[in-house]
């Protein structure tokens, strides 16, 4: 087990290093000169050179990349004299646009993204698996057809259309919810819940529909297995057969997908956060791309990659607990 874990972690580090390298290469080598953008309207070539020096853009690629990696693990210093700023590890640099520490920007915004992700995940697991199970058990009935019809429809509505339609109906017309904003839990649990409800629903809809169809298919497959017939033949009650024998094998694939989906969401729900004006990591990613703010784009990419890679390892570990066939000795 320890050897397996060590191997996985080494692989994880390698993947993250490659992600770093390629993102750095793409954003720092292939994009136009950010110094020109910062220099602004009344600009001179000398000023551009000065800005490039301050940002460290005049250094060769490899030494820039080395400094970035060193900063990530050991921190680094920016500026000099009274202007000296120490950027402690993990140092992701400073935003070209706002001069703010990128790490602090992420730490500020992560709670919003986590709130969105956790709330949506709870919703889509409940709704998706619930609907899937019901459909499987009532296979072929109008329950099944209605639910699966809804799932197909729900999966085909784009996020932003659903978001704006819900907002128009619930907020503008019926006035039963406030306009969404990143309200802190401490500002009042009710307002907090109301403010996040629409983002949760919007984000959960697509996933719930997908999970419902997956759950249904898996459960139907499992129900047709020989061991299920045996279980029923032994005289086990339908509820017990379902719970003890059908759900576990049927839901293991769902665990895998859920782990990855959830991990990816922690890296920011770009569209939902932007549409609802939630100041999360996804909104930050969208803004940084619009402004070509390379250190921020770099950091968000790295963060999302880390979540996905770590999420994968966690899923594999959980899997070994759920499915004895893949257990590591």
């Amino acid at each position, binding site marked *: 087990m320890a050897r397996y874990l060590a191997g996985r972690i080494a692989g994880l580090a390698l993947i993250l290093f490659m992600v770093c390298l390629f993102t750095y290469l793409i954003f720092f080598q292939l994009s136009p000169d950010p110094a020109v953008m910062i220099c*602004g*309207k009344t600009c001179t070539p000398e000023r551009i050179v000065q800005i490039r020096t301050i940002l460290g853009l005049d250094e060769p690629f490899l030494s820039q990349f080395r400094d970035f990696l060193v900063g990530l693990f050991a921190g680094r210093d920016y500026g000099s004299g009274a*202007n000296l700023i120490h950027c402690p590890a993990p140092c992701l640099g400073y935003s070209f*646009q706002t001069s703010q520490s990128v790490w602090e920007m992420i730490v500020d915004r992560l709670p919003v993204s986590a709130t969105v992700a956790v709330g949506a995940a709870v919703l889509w697991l409940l709704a998706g698996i619930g609907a899937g199970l019901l459909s499987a058990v009532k296979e072929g009935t109008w329950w099944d057809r209605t639910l699966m019809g809804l799932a197909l429809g729900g999966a085909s509505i784009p996020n932003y259309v659903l978001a704006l339609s819900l907002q128009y109906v619930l907020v503008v017309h019926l006035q039963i919810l*406030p306009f969404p904003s990143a309200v802190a839990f401490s500002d009042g649990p009710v307002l907090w819940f109301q403010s996040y409800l629409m983002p949760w629903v919007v984000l959960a809809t697509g996933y719930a529909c997908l999970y419902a169809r997956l759950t249904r298919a898996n459960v139907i497959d499992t129900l047709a297995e020989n061991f299920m017939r045996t279980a029923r033949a032994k005289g086990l009650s339908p509820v017990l057969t379902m719970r003890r024998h059908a759900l576990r094998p049927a839901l293991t694939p769902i665990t895998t997908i859920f782990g990855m989906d959830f991990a990816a969401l922690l890296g920011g729900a770009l569209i939902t956060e932007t549409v609802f004006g939630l*100041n999360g990591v996804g909104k*930050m990613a969208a*803004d940084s791309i*619009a402004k070509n703010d390379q250190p921020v784009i770099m950091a968000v990419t790295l963060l999302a990659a880390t979540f996905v890679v770590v999420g994968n390892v966690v899923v594999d570990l959980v899997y070994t607990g759920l499915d004895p066939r893949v257990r590591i000795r």
Partner: protein
Amino acid sequence: MRRSAVIAAGAALSALALTACGGASTPASGTGATGPATTGGTVHYLLSSDYSHLDPVRGWDGGVNNFYRLIYRGLTTFGAGPGKEGTKIVPDLATTTGTATDDNKTWTFTLKDDIFFEDGTPITSEAMKFGVARAWDPEAGIGSPYARLLIDAPKSYKGPYVSGDLDTIETPDPKTIVFHLKKPFADFASALAQPNFVPFPKGTGAANAFDAKPIASGPYKVESYQRGASLKLVRNPHWKAATDTVRAAKPDRFQITFGLDGATIDERMLAGQGADANAIAGAIQAATVARIQAPQFKARTLSTYMGCTTYMSFNTTKKPLGDVRVRQAINHAINKDTVVAGDGGTALATRATSIQPPTIVGRVDYDPYPTDLAKARQLLEEAGLADGFDLTLDVRPVPRQQGMAVAIQEALKPLKVNVKINNIDTSTFYEVIATPAQQHDAALTGWCPDWSSGATFLPPLFDGRNIYDKGNQNLAQINDKAVNERIDEIAEMTDVDAANAAYAELDKQIMELAPIVPLLYEKNVTVIGDNIAGAYLSDAYSGGIDLVSVGLKTPGK
């Protein structure tokens, strides 16, 4: 104002907006005030993006400059009022707009009494000098360049944190400050209204401290600031209203919310539920223009020029465009009315004919190239291009830009000029077109002046000695000896009014060379809350609501 400010201003209207359908008419209420504001209450301000910087030597665009006036004061500032009132230069911390000696090369200012920072320490000439010297800091000084451009300083000077005191600014006593300029500059009082001429206690603000927690000299101070999410201002108890003739500062608090989706802001402003009745916002989306035509929104709609010109710039180094007749022909061929329609209709812009927009002092309205296809054909024939040519036009992939580009494409078809629309992503557009090596035949762009004078409009765009490999703003790359000489002559004029009149003539002189096609003057259209009073749009701040005058009708509501 920075080039990115032009993007910000334009993007506010253009970025996510859909082209408005039909020809929406101009909202009725112009820049007029909405009745007097009463003291007290909280004004809410809904914005889609955060301010670039709270540190005034770093930030520099119409939106943030307007905000700075709430927390900072300078030696001079713009007047508070709609129309021409807003572009007048008035004294702020200084008793007058300055006394010039030595042929406008030395400027002396006396500070008012009873002026304090938010902690109660008096504002001295030493603090003023320290604040101005921060503009030389290589890291911080990314905002307005006018301190560095105008004030004499040793070449090696790198701001107070690195190089210490700036000896060329004199402070003979705590109330007097003397600036020595590099060369005579008659309009120095206007330059001083730029946001980076702001006092700070000596030694403060190193390593971007002011971006998180500024030190206020104006009527409000920052209570809390959450980057990208919210900014709360409360009264600065040490600001004395008697010393300030510009800022009404009626509300007790400002609560600014950032990061809201543009369409959501419009929905909230139109719905005006709850606290949104006390809210103001930026420009509405083009798609919302049709909706505000409903009668109930008339009284809540403000509209004025943003003070910028949107134009198509030719790259005169490219083959047929080096010929002035070809550029003139295209000027004659483009029907500006269809370009305005492509941009979203007359509610959002009016057709442009001169380089300088109507808000510029001394600007003359004239039309050197009225739409005339026959004339255009004749000019092209003379240039030997009766069979037309290909022209690549650089644009941003946003609906309003696309609408204008298509209008231009259609307008040039009869001349057999085949316009190829080349989309460049908004995030890198200005970097690309400011690099002559990457520029194509023409580009759709715009310019906003730093103050309402030709001085910050014509020389930056058409001085042939300012053509750079990178960060180039003379997109046409026009280098005309007569124009360059005229620019120098006007810069030396000691009478500001005469200089502005001369810029109006220079505008005509440049348009004879047709380096650009002026397309439209964009308008700022905004909706205010039901309980908002004292709101008008300021010509000095890209047509944004003047924050120093806005307040509430009934604060308790």
